[in-house]
């Protein structure tokens, strides 16, 4: 199988590491070769962060380049737009509609672009946008946005629900498992 590419993008501190761990486990269990590339250190401090997940028969590069992503999973709208050029021509964006102003917008040096979902669609991207923060809070914690997004992403994968559930059980601490299972279901059904 040709290598498939998933990018997880967001703002440092939003929980993309758990999402990539979940995907890594899930895809390994399906028998794929998998590579996951993460960001640690300074850029984690509220900066734009990106995690690359790649899987297939044999994966070489740990990173995803422009025009290569089959999926972009985004925790924040501006970040989806920032990484848009990494999407394949027929790729799918799954994004939370949450907006977090970056410092240049906060200080007034720049403005947050409007109508990003429509503009990304006009640029040819398939965009699935939903209010993941609201769903995460409904599940019991604003921190569960990552798993709401995973639930939504599961729509696009031809994998049994059981496989996702097993990876959740393997990767989420028992204390938070029920909450995250609710978050996954809410994302999936939304």
């Amino acid at each position, binding site marked *: 199988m040709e290598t498939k590419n998933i990018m997880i993008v967001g*703002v*440092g*501190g939003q929980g993309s590491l758990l999402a990539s761990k979940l995907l890594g486990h899930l895809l*390994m269990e399906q028998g794929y*070769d*998998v*590579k*996951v*590339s*993460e*960001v*640690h*250190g*300074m*850029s*984690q*401090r*509220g*900066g*734009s962060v990106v995690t690359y997940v790649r899987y297939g028969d044999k*994966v*070489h*590069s*740990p*990173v995803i*380049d*422009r*025009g*290569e992503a089959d999926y972009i999973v985004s925790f924040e709208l*501006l*970040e989806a*737009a*920032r990484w*848009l*050029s*990494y*999407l*394949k*021509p027929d790729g799918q964006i799954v994004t939370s509609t949450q907006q*977090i*102003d*970056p*410092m*240049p*917008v*906060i*200080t007034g*040096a*720049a*403005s*947050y*672009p409007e109508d*990003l979902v429509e*503009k*990304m669609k*006009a*640029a*040819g991207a398939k965009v699935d946008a939903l209010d993941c*923060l609201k769903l995460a809070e409904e599940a019991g914690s*604003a921190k569960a946005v990552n798993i709401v997004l995973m639930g939504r992403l599961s729509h696009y994968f031809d994998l049994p629900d059981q496989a996702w559930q097993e990876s959740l059980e393997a990767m989420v601490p028992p204390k938070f498992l029920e909450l995250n299972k609710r978050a996954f279901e809410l994302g999936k059904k939304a």
Partner: protein
Amino acid sequence: MKQLMLGNAAVARGLYEAGCCVISSYPGTPSTEITEEAAKYDEIYCEWAPNEKVAMETAFGACLAGKRSFCAMKHVGLNVAADPLFTMSYTGVNAGMVIGVADDPGMHSSQNEQDSRHHAIAAKVPMLEPSDSAEALAFAKLAYELSEEFDTPVLLKTCTRVAHSQSVVETSPRAEAEAKPYEKNIAKYVMMPGNAIRRHPLVEERTRKLQQWAETAPINRIEPGTDHKIGIITSSTSYQYVKEVCGDRFPVLKLGMAWPMPEKLIRDFAASVTTLTVVEELDPIIENYCRSLGLALMGKDVFPLEGEFSQNLVAEKMGLPVHKGTSIDDPIPPRPPVMCAGCPHRGLFYTLSKNKVTVLGDIGCYTLGAVAPLSAMDMTLCMGASISAVHGFNKAQGAEAEGKTVAVIGDSTFMHSGMTGLANIAYNQSNSTVIILDNSITGMTGHQQNPTTGYNIKGDPAGKIDLEALCKAMGFRRVRVVDPYDLKACDAALKEELAAAEPSVIISRRPCALLKYVKHEAPLTVDPVKCVGCRSCMKIGCPAISIKEGKARVDNTLCVGCGVCEQLCPVQAFQSTRKEG
């Protein structure tokens, strides 16, 4: 067992399987998790040392005593530890010793993008260079075999994309390495001129033997291709990008050993192809070696010296098709890293900004004090430089500078290499003001303990160095502690210490807001009736505060109720959301 493992965790697993017994490291992105992961194995003694030089010398002592040892550091940390490295090359080892060094091409979290391979060449020690987690594990084990067979420390070099990428590894059980007896050997281990003169020829001979080993070592391998018009020599992640782009089309010589390089293997490979291309990130190390053999090639005339490579970059430079994506017309505002909401550094940096002092900075989260709107930093160079440089600055400009110049340095960085600069101020007497930003943790690298926190790498109680007592013992009479959440106290402390006629230390003390034990206050909210939209609260660059429709607004998912903004508001528009009773 097959599993997905971070490159750094795979190095730690390799150390464990090889029977490593002692690890001493200083944290540094992207090397930190090697030691954190190794600390999870009870069979290995692990510690955080105050700096990389101490870590390397500790590991050396352990190998001298007969146990396999290791130390890890980032590329710039190897500069700090270069002194022991260059002479350990002469002494060699007793039990095996491996040094992990992680480069950061693209500078995800570093102040420069130096190429550590230069250190291997300059110190005349072998260097292995894995390209994924499986190799990281295997090369860590191989490094011990080489270390003991050739009587040398061995460098194990990774980079961000190896250290911080997960890929599939197969693990094995630990094989205990038999402890080597310690035998006194003055001629080998006491490096004074008479002995070192006799050791140097052995070092040169060792390099020749290692080069022979490299000629047939399985980690230097030729992968055949179908199109011999181009032959590619590559290593590390560049190898992965080459394979991604070219598949099995062109023959590839993949070097797992960065130094020394196999002359005959390279010559034979070059002779088997029409043209030669060298693909390597950062400096032309393989390229220069090939050129020294008289080989013509395509290298840094086409590939950049700066930044990380990727599959598109390799394809473009080789004239192969490149993937393209779509974009929108709107400019996308950048999202640089910022001090977190509730960061204790913010109040202090606001005070420095307000008083318009010259700030000689250092390495840590607080380097973000240089970012707008605070913009309260004039210089950042390397670990510890703030204190040494403020002394030099003040000596050059005299009293004029002394009243408006400070050094700022974190607690961990102070223990790393700030103390020696402070000794210079005490000894050579400049009227300097030093601010230690004590957030009770090594923050930037992800919360590692240090000698001032009172805990060790496993979180157990440990020795604790008292910063106030230390500064006083060095001869500073003016040592005071302030809470950086208290802007008035910060302002008074800064003004008084700058005006004082003798050197002083201000310790700005409050634990990092991200530490689990730190209790947060309820988020603040803005009363839109009271708020006049004066933007006073915007001067501190807090990511939780923005102006919407002319009024300040607090993001309650980010705010930790530190109250710094509240102290700036002229109309008391900020209110706590805490429920009374």
